[in-house]
C-alpha cells in the first residue's frame, strides 16, 4: 500500500481517550520513587526496564526539545497524554497491562509482565484446507507484529489452498496468551486469466513460460510467489509485482513487470567443501529477440576443476514458448584425486518444459560430441565420442518453493547417455540412471519439526561387450563417495581403485529436527548406503555404509551444514589399498539433502 504523508494526529480523540485510559494510583507503595529511574524529565520507568523507544516515540512521550514551530507546540506533554501513548508503545513490545502513577507532572510507569503467545486457535477453516500445525511461536512476545505475522501466515496458507480472496483477522488475549485467527475464506476460486499491466515487447507466452500456475487451476498464492521468483532468478525481469482481482467466478492475476537492462555480468567468489575455493564469471544476454532467448559465456575455476563455456537457449516456437534448443560449447579440466582429464564438448539439446498441477516436468534430448583426454588415472586416454543425451526431470512445486528450507516435495531425474560404435566410439554403450529425492514434513508442523528425507540413485551402463569401466569415458562410469551420496567417504573414491564402476545402487535417509536447539539449529541423523558393480547390471557384494550425525543452521545469509559420518565397508574385496573406514567431517554451505 502506498503510504501517504504521516497520518494526522487527532488531539481531540487523544484527549477523549485520556479520560478512559488506565487506572491511576496514588500513594501506592509500589510506586515509591526509589523504585524508578528517570527516562526523561517527567517520565520514570521501573528500574531495570529499558523500553527502547524510538526517537519519535521518545519525543511523543517526553516532549520535543527543539524551540521551533514544530517543537514548541509539542514541548510539553501532560502525564495523561504520555500515559496514553506509552500504553500503546508498550503494547507494541508485549506489555499489555502496564500500571501508571501520576504525581503532579511526573509519570511513573511499571510495564508489568510481558505477555507471551501460548496457544493458537483458527476459526472458519474452509473445507479444502488442511490446517498445518503451527509451532515455534509459543513463548514469543505477544505483540501486534506477531499478530500481523499470524494473519499473514494464515492468509498465505489459505490463499495457497485456492481461497484467493480470503480475509483474515487475528485477535489475542494478553492474559492467557491465546491467539485466535478468524478466516472468512469466501469461495475457492480458479484462475481465469493473467493480465500484464505494462508493455514488455515480448512475444505472448514468454512470461508465462515461468508460471508455476495454470489457467483453470485453483489459485495458489504460493505458486504466484514461486512464479515471481523464477522470473527474477532467471534474470528475465528486473522486478515484477503480482496482484489479484477477485470476481465471483474466479481470479484474474495481474502482473506488472519491469524489464530492466537486457545484459548481466556476474563475478563471484565462493566454493564448497569438495572443491574448495571457486571463482566464476558470467556474462549473459538475457533477452534476445521477442521470444527472450538467451546467450551466455561463463568461466568457472577451482583448484580441482576449471570450466569455460558458451551456452545459448533459443526459444524458437511462438506456439510453444516453453520449448527450446540449447547449443553449448564447453571446455572442462578435472584434476581429481583419482583422475586428471580434459574435455571439449559440443552439444545441442532440445527441451520440452511443461507445468503440471503439482510440479514441473522437463524432457531434453540431443546429440553431443566430446573430445576427452585422460592425463592421469584409469581411462581410455584420448577419445572422441558422439553420444545422445536424453533426460527427464521432475521437480515438485513444494521442493522448488522450499528450496532454501527443504521440508516437502520431490525431485526425480532419469538420464540416458547413449553412444554407438559407428558414431565414432570404439564401443557401444548406454548409461542409464534414475535418481531422486523425497522429503516429508512429518506431523505437518509449520515450521516443520521433523523432516524425513530419502534420496536414491540407480544406474548402470550397458555395453555391447565385456568391458572394464576404465575403458569408458568418465561420463559412462559411476563413482560414489562425498557429500552427494556416501558422506562417510571422500569424494568419488568408490569403488576403490579409481576406475569407477558400471553399476550403482545408492540410498540415503536423513531425519532432521528443525530449529529445536536454541530455536536455530537443526540436529540431524542420517544413514547412507550403497553398492557398486564393476559389471553392467550387476552389483558387487561390498556394501558401503555411512551413518552419521550433523547440525544444520539456517542463517540469514544461507544454510550451513556440518556433519560427522563414519564410512563402513562390509564384506570388502581383499587386497585393495587405502584405509577406507574412518570418520569423515564435513562442512558445507548452501547444500541441502
Amino acid at each position: 500500500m502506498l503510504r501517504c504523508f504521516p497520518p494526522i494526529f487527532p488531539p481531540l480523540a487523544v484527549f477523549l481517550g485520556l479520560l478512559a485510559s488506565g487506572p491511576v494510583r496514588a500513594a501506592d507503595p509500589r510506586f515509591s520513587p526509589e523504585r524508578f529511574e528517570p527516562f526523561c524529565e517527567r517520565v520514570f520507568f521501573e528500574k531495570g526496564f529499558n523500553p527502547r523507544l524510538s526517537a519519535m516515540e521518545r519525543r511523543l512521550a517526553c516532549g520535543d526539545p527543539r524551540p521551533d514551530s514544530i517543537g514548541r507546540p509539542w514541548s510539553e506533554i501532560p502525564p495523561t497524554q504520555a500515559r496514553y501513548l506509552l500504553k500503546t508503545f508498550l503494547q507494541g513490545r508485549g506489555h499489555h497491562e502496564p500500571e501508571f502513577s501520576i504525581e503532579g507532572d511526573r509519570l511513573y510507569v511499571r510495564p508489568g509482565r510481558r505477555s507471551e503467545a501460548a496457544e493458537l486457535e483458527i476459526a472458519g477453516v474452509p473445507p479444502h484446507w488442511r490446517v498445518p500445525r503451527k509451532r515455534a511461536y509459543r513463548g514469543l512476545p505477544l505483540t501486534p507484529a506477531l499478530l500481523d505475522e499470524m494473519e499473514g501466515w494464515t492468509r498465505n496458507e489459505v490463499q495457497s489452498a485456492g481461497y484467493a480472496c480470503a480475509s483474515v483477522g487475528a485477535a489475542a488475549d494478553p492474559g492467557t496468551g491465546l491467539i485466535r485467527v478468524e478466516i472468512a475464506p469466501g469461495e475457492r476460486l480458479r484462475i481465469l486469466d493473467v493480465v500484464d499491466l505494462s508493455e514488455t515487447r515480448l512475444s505472448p507466452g514468454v512470461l508465462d513460460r515461468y508460471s508455476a500456475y495454470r489457467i483453470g487451476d485453483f489459485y495458489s498464492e504460493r505458486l504466484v510467489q514461486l512464479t515471481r521468483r523464477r522470473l527474477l532468478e532467471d534474470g528475465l525481469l528486473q522486478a515484477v509485482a503480482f496482484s489479484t482481482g477477485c470476481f465471483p467466478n474466479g481470479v484474474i492475476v495481474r502482473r506488472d513487470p519491469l524489464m530492466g537492462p537486457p545484459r548481466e555480468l556476474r563475478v563471484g567468489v565462493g566454493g564448497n567443501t569438495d572443491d574448495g575455493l571457486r571463482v566464476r564469471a558470467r556474462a549473459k544476454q538475457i533477452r534476445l529477440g521477442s521470444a527472450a532467448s538467451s546467450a551466455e559465456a561463463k568461466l568457472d575455476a577451482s583448484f580441482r576443476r576449471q570450466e569455460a563455456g558458451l551456452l545459448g537457449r533459443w526459444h524458437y516456437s511462438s506456439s510453444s514458448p516453453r520449448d527450446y534448443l540449447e547449443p553449448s560449447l564447453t571446455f572442462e579440466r578435472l584434476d581429481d584425486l583419482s583422475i586428471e582429464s580434459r574435455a571439449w564438448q559440443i552439444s545441442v539439446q532440445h527441451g520440452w518444459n511443461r507445468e503440471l498441477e503439482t510440479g514441473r516436468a522437463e524432457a531434453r534430448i540431443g546429440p553431443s560430441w566430446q573430445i576427452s583426454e585422460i592425463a592421469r588415472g584409469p581411462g581410455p586416454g584420448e577419445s572422441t565420442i558422439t553420444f545422445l543425451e536424453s533426460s527427464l526431470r521432475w521437480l515438485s512445486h513444494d521442493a522448488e518453493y522450499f528450496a532454501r528450507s527443504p521440508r516437502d516435495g520431490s525431485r526425480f531425474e532419469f538420464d540416458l547417455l547413449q553412444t554407438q560404435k559407428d558414431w565414432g566410439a570404439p564401443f557401444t554403450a548406454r548409461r542409464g540412471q534414475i535418481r531422486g529425492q523425497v522429503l516429508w514434513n512429518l506431523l505437518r508442523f509449520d515450521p516443520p519439526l521433523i523432516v524425513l528425507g530419502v534420496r536414491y540413485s540407480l544406474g548402470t551402463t550397458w555395453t555391447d561387450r565385456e568391458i572394464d569401466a576404465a575403458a569408458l569415458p568418465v561420463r559412462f562410469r559411476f563413482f560414489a563417495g562425498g557429500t552427494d551420496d556416501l558422506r562417510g567417504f571422500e569424494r568419488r573414491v568408490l569403488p576403490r581403485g579409481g576406475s569407477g564402476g558400471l553399476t550403482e545402487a545408492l540410498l540415503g535417509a536423513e531425519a532432521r529436527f528443525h530449529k529445536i536447539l536454541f530455536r536455530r539449529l537443526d540436529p540431524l541423523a542420517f544413514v547412507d548406503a550403497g553398492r557398486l558393480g564393476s559389471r553392467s547390471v550387476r552389483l558387487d557384494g561390498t556394501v558401503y555404509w555411512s551413518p552419521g550425525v550433523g547440525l544444520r543452521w539456517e542463517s540469514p545469509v544461507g544454510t550451513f551444514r556440518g556433519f560427522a559420518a563414519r564410512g563402513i565397508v562390509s564384506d570388502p574385496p581383499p587386497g585393495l589399498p587405502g584405509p577406507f573406514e574412518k570418520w569423515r567431517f564435513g562442512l558445507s554451505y548452501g547444500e541441502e539433502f
Partner: protein
Amino acid sequence: MAKLARKNVRARLTGFGLVVGVAVGSLLSLVLLVVAVFLLAPELEIGSARLRALAGRFAPADLGIGWEDAVVRLVKTDAFSKEIEIRLDGICVRYKGGALDACFEKLEWGAGFSVSGFKPRITFFAPLIAAGGEIAGDLDDLAPEEPVDGPKPGEPGGFSLVDFARTEFLPKWRVDGSFVELRRLELDSGGRALRGRLQLSTAATGAARLVSLRIEDVRFGNDISVDLKGEVDWPVAEGSPFTVGVDLDGGLPGRRKVRARLDGKIHWWDHVDYALGAKFANIPAVREGRIRGTYKGDGVTGLVSAKFGAVHAQVKTLDFVDCGYEVALDRREGVLACGPQTVTVGLRERAELRNRALFRLFPTFDLRVTNLSWENGAENGFAADWDFKLALRHMRALQADLDFSGSVVRQGAADPAHGGLRYSVDGDALVRVLDFGRVVALLRGTPLAVPAPANQLRGSIELNASGGFSERGGSLPFELRTRLRSEFQRLFATVDGGLALNRTAAGLRPELGIDVAIEDVLLSLPRVDVTSSPPKVVSDSRFRPGLARDRTSAREKANGGEAGPGPRYRVRVNTTSQGALKLATNLTGAPIPISVRYKLRSADGRPRWVRAAAAAAGPGASGGAVPPWMEGTISLGRTPVDIGGINKFLSRLERDAVLDHFDLELQPDGGRRIDGKLVVTNPDATISILILGTLAQPVVRFESEPPANEDQIIAALLFGRPINELDERQQQSAAAFRTAVNDTALTLAQMYLLANSPIDSLNYDSESGRVIASVKIAGGTSLEFGGGRGAGTEVGIRRRLARNVYLNTHVERASQTDEQLVSAFVEWVRRF
C-alpha cells in the same frame, strides 16, 4: 397499589377510631341516659354491679367490657348543669373477639354538661387519667367488612375525629393533670406489627401547661423504629400560641438512621412558625436537611438548607445553605431561590489535585413554580409551570448562564400516547470558556490536563444554545465558536448545529446535525523522522482480555442481533477559504494547506443507492453491522517541499520541487480514491509524479513536458540527465527506483525525498522491500528505507548483502562427471 394501601390504612384507622368512639360513645350514651333519667337528682352514684348490668344490656354484642371496679358519679352543679365522673379500675375492652384488646389499670375521666334549650351540650372535659394501659389488636380485623352506611367523615352528617378534636374536644379539655400511659401498644396490620409505648402527661407551670409526649421503642415490622419525645407548651390563656418541641430518632431499612428535631409555634392553626432539622446516617444521597419558616393560611415562606451526597456519578456533594422558598397556597405558586454562595457543588475528584477548588462549583439559581394544580381522586393529575435560572462563574475561567422555563401536566385520565405526562421546556444557555490558558493552567497536573499541541493555545470558546422540547419533540440549535491562538498555532472555527428530538413510533429519537466551518486553523504535527515509519499511537484493538472465554466470533457479533435504530447524526466539515486549514510539519518548508469538504452521516442517513448496493452485497459484505457512511474530499494544496533542508541544494541545481496537490476522495460506497501530483522542475523539463487509483491499490505514473518515456523521466528525475547520458551505475539506480515505486515500497515522502535528493546511487531489493540510496549531501550519506515485508513464508536462495552484491547458491552439473555441484558464491551483479 399505594392508593389501595392508603385506603386500607385509612379504613383500619377509621375502624379503630370508630371502635374507640363507639366504646366511649357507648359509655357516654349510657351515662347520658342515666343523666337524663336522673337529671334532677342532685347526686347519683352508679356502682359496679349496676354498670355491668347496663353494659351487658346496651353494649354491642361484639364489644366486651369488663372491669374490676367502676363507679360513675353524677354531681349536680347547678339547676341545669351536671358533672359526671367516671372511674374505672382494671378496665378491659375486647372487640370482635380479640381483634382489639384494650386494658387500663386505672381510667378516670369526666365531663361537664348542661342542658340548654332541651339540648345537652358538653361544657368541659375533665383531665383524663388512663394509666397502665395496654392495647393490642389487628387492624386488618377491625376494618369494616361492608361499607359503613351513613355519611362519611367530612360529608354533611359525617363524623370527623379531627374536626371533633379541633372544635370540641381540645378547646374544652381541662388538660391539666391529665396522664395517659400505654405501657404496651401492639397493632398488627398487613403482616407488619406496630409496637411501642406512649406516655402523655400534663403539668401546669403557671401561665402554661406543659404537655409531654413520649413515644418510645416504636417498631414497624423489623426494620423501622421510632423514638419520639415531644413537649408542648400549652398556654393557659386562650388564644395564646402554644409551642411544640419534638425530638425523633428513627431507624429505616438498610441500617439507615434519621434524627430530627421539630420546633414549632402554633397560633391556633392559622399561623404556624416551624423549624425542622434532620440528620441522616447511612443514606448516601442525603446527609442532612433543615427547613424553617412560617405557615399562614395563604402560604408558606422560609429558608431551606440541605446537604446531599452522591446524587450523580460525577457529583460528590451538593449543599444548599439557606435557600429561600415561598409557596402561595391560594395561587398555587412557589419559588425556590438560591443566591450567590448558597449552593456548593462538589464534583468527584479524579486524583491528587493541586487545586481542590477546581472541583467546587458555586452556582446560583432560581426556580419558580407557578400555576400549580392537582386533583385528588382515583387518578391524581397535576399541572405546573416553572421557570429556572442558573448562573455559574468558576475560577475566572468558566462562565455558564442558563435560563429555561416550561410546564408539566399530568392528565387525570392518563394519556397513553405520552405516558400520561405532558411537558415543555424552552430556554437559552450560554457557556463560555473565558480564558483557555487559565483552563490549561488549572488542569495542568490533573487527569484532565489538556494534551499537546492544544495546551499551547490561548483565547476563548463560547457555546450558545437556544431552543425547546416537549413530549412531542423539539430542537436545540447551538453555536460554538473558538478563538484560540498561540505563537505558532491558531484555531478559529465555528460549529453550528442543532439537536432535534423527533417523535417516532418507538419514542423520541435524537438527531444531531453539525456544520463545522474551519475559518483559520494552523496546527503543528509532531516531528517525523523521514527514514522510519511513524509509531502507532492508537492501541491495537485486536488484544482483548477475556477473549479465551468469548467464543462468539467477530463475524457473529457483527451479524448478531437486529440493531435498533441508533441516534441519527449528520456532520459536515468545510474550510471556508483556500488555506483556511494548514498543518505545519517538519517535512515541508511551509505549512501544508488543506481544503476539506467532508460529510459524515449515521448509517440510516445513507443515500438510497448506497443502501441498495449494500443490500445487494448481502449482510456478509459488511459483516452485518452497518457503519456510518461518509463522503467528501480532503485536499492538500500546493506546497513547496523541503525535506531534510535540501532546498538550498536544489536551488544550486536550478531545480524546483513542489507538491502540486493531493486529493483524497471519500466515496459513499467506501471507496477511497486518490489523486496527487508532485512536480519537479528542471531547466530542460518539468516532471510530474502522479499518484492515482485508490488508497488500497495506488498507481504511480511519471509524466514530463516535453514528453518522454518513463525510463527517461526517471533518469532525469533522479540525475537530471537523459538516460543515454547516464553511466551504468546511474542506469541501475533508475531501474531500481522504478521497481521500488512499482512495488509500493516507498512512502510518498520517501519518494519525494529521493526524487529531490542528489542521489549518487540507488538500489532496491524486491525480496526484502528495502531501498538504499547513497546521497551526495553529507559526504556519502546513505538513506535506507523500508523494513521488509514481514515474516512471510516466501523463501529464496539469493540474499542481498550490499549494493550490487549478493550471496547466491548455485546447483550445477559437471559436464564430464555429471555430478551435482552445489556452491555458494558472493557475487557482484550488474545489469546493463
